[in-house]
């Protein structure tokens, strides 16, 4: 049974060697579990980064080609991974230059049309009430 772990601090070595064997076992098991968790998280992050990189590569190449063909192009990509939420907008238009994604581009529901429709319905009802 090891009496020390590689931790970078002498305090940890000293503490571990002073502990009884059962406590040392528990600590080592916890340490190993932590290391496995970190490793799993690193693998997940790598997969997410690779997927994001591939997606952005496709967006970039299509945007460049479409612009070269003489189009006005705006391309956007939104992705939420284990690391972060990434919002990207590319192109040769003013919208792309401003760098602000619309709600439909971000995937959020745009309530503005609903508010406008409710407002129109309310106006019609009010006009009917006062018209009588």
């Amino acid at each position, binding site marked *: 049974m090891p009496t020390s772990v590689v931790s970078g601090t002498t305090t940890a070595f000293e503490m571990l060697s002073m502990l009884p064997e059962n406590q040392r076992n528990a600590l080592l098991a916890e340490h190993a579990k932590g290391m496995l968790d970190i490793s799993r998280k690193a693998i997940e992050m790598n997969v997410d980064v690779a997927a994001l990189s*591939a*997606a952005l590569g*496709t*967006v970039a190449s*299509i945007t460049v*080609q*479409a612009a070269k*063909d*003489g*189009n*006005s*192009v*705006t*391309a*956007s*990509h*939104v*992705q939420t991974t284990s690391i972060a939420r990434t919002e990207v907008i590319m192109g040769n*238009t003013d*919208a792309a230059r401003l760098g602000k994604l*619309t*709600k*439909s*581009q971000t*995937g959020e529901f*745009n309530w503005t*049309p*609903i508010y406008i429709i409710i407002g129109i319905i309310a106006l019609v009802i009010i006009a009917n009430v006062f018209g009588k």
Partner: protein
Amino acid sequence: MLTTTVRLHDETEIEVECNSLRQKAKKSHLSDVETDILIDHFVKTAMPLIASGRLMRSQGSNLNVTRSLKGLGYVMQIEFTTRNSRSLFARLAGLFSNR
């Protein structure tokens, strides 16, 4: 002179749009040769957009493209949007125009 706007998305059937354009060209009194040139110009522009749009949509990206095509007897505005980036108003308009 044919002046028209063609709205496309990644599920557009190019043949349907071509037939629609042919009818519009006929109404605008374009000759057969001019119509063929117009259709050829349209297909060469629209096909890569639809292919790119499909690829973009499959990975959850959005693509919006506008292009103005001018030729003998026609001015055409092409507006391409991937289906997932269409606003509620655009979707409602699409329902009425059967797109």
